[in-house]
């Protein structure tokens, strides 16, 4: 099982490393969104600092849609999804492997965005532990939900439009909880970030469990 997971994760990450789509398209897109938020809020540094957490996570969620689409587009050419089905790999391993690859990609992106936010919006970190944990757990939730809906939409003609409609409402609780926890970690708002982290963990567990159960059926139908 573990070997199968790393096999799939390795495959996805290798494709990303070689194609450099993440680096040359997805990451610049995310930075552009952060810059546009700066324009929308009139470059007011106090406002930007106050809303840093929310803007950061909205950017991550939007970018995640691109990453999810990318994760399944690479398999749509040359009937690669059929190859994956015929590979004899456990569907649970395929799900966990693809989700893990997304987690790693998104975490790298979040580190990059973190630096950009620090430069453009300013601010400081008061609880690095909470910040790091929130980032990891929220990213797991995003990647798990993304992988379920990604495979679900992969074979549809309307996949580009239906994926955000299905994925964004599901990610709303993750966005709310991650934002609140980040606000605490950044010392901007006095909330108990750890209780929000509990909700995030619960969401991540639910989405991962669902994905593990449903992925096989969805892959067969894709």
């Amino acid at each position, binding site marked *: 099982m573990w070997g199968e997971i790393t096999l799939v994760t390795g495959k996805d990450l290798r494709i990303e490393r070689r194609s450099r789509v993440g680096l040359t398209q997805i990451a610049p897109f995310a930075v552009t969104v952060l810059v546009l938020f700066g324009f929308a809020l009139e470059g007011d540094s106090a406002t930007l600092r106050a809303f840093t957490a929310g803007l950061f996570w909205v950017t991550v969620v939007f970018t995640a849609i691109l990453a999810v689409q990318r994760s399944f587009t690479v398999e749509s050419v040359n009937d690669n999804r059929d190859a994956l089905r015929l590979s004899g790999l456990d569907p649970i391993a395929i799900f966990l492997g693809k989700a893990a690859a997304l987690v790693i990609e998104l975490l790298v992106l979040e580190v990059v965005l973190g630096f950009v936010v620090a430069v453009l919006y300013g601010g400081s970190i008061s609880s690095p532990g909470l910040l790091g944990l929130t980032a990891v757990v929220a990213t797991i939730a995003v990647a798990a939900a993304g992988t379920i809906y990604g495979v*679900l939409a992969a074979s549809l*003609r309307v996949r580009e439009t239906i994926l955000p409609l299905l994925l964004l*409402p599901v990610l709303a609780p993750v966005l709310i909880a991650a934002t609140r926890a980040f606000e605490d970690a950044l010392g901007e708002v006095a909330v108990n970030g750890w209780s929000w982290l509990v909700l995030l963990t619960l969401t991540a567990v639910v989405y991962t469990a669902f994905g593990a159960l449903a992925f096989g059926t969805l892959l067969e139908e894709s």
Partner: protein
Amino acid sequence: MKTLGERDEFRNTSSRGTRILGGLSLVGIVFMGLIGLWWSPEDSDMGDLVRIMYVHVPSAWLAYMAFIITAIGSAMFLWKRSVWWDLIAGASAEIGVVFCALALATGSLWGRPTWGTYWLWSDVRIVTTLVLLLMYAGYLALRHVDGDPTQRSKRAAIVGLIAAANIPVVRMSVVWWSNRTLHQKDTVTLGDTKLDNLQLFTLMFALVVFMVLFAWMLLHRFRIAWLESEFEQRGLEEALIERRAESRVEPERLLEREATDRAMRAAEVRP
């Protein structure tokens, strides 16, 4: 042989049962209006605003019930692979979305005079209910995507189950973050009922009426969905063939009718 359009079960989606349910819900709504708007007293805290609750609370409960039925239908479809369950899930979700929107709308109308605003972002329950509404809007959109019916049903069933997993989060949120929400804590709790007897009766009566209404709508919507799926499966081809057959039958019938008319006229003349 009767054509598709002539067979009784295709004529309309009503039956004796649905006509009774429809009649009951109509009478119930009228009666509910009377006790809700006139006979029941105003609330000591909320005043006349309590009357919005008689629509708001049953709508919200029914929306949740509809979504739970969708979840059950989805799970049963994945287990039994019967179209019947898939259609029930879809029909229930559609009605659930309507009641969910009604609950949010009436909640906003209640919120304006009570909280001073139509919408309160800091209230976890209304925000998550809106998210729930959007989630089921996505579910319905997915159901309308063209493609193989079986694949579509499977996808919809899985999305229906995922959406249902969020219902407990919505329901519990008011309890979890009670320090951050201004929402009414569960007003109707056993043993500690704050509502007046007639108010409580009105609320319970409204709930029953809404349930009957829901059953009526669900039956009709299910039957329409069933006809749609039948049509989809049997295809346009068959319908066209039957339509052509119908038009071929027509001239023969006209001849028959003419012959009987002539015979009757002859019978009248004779005496």
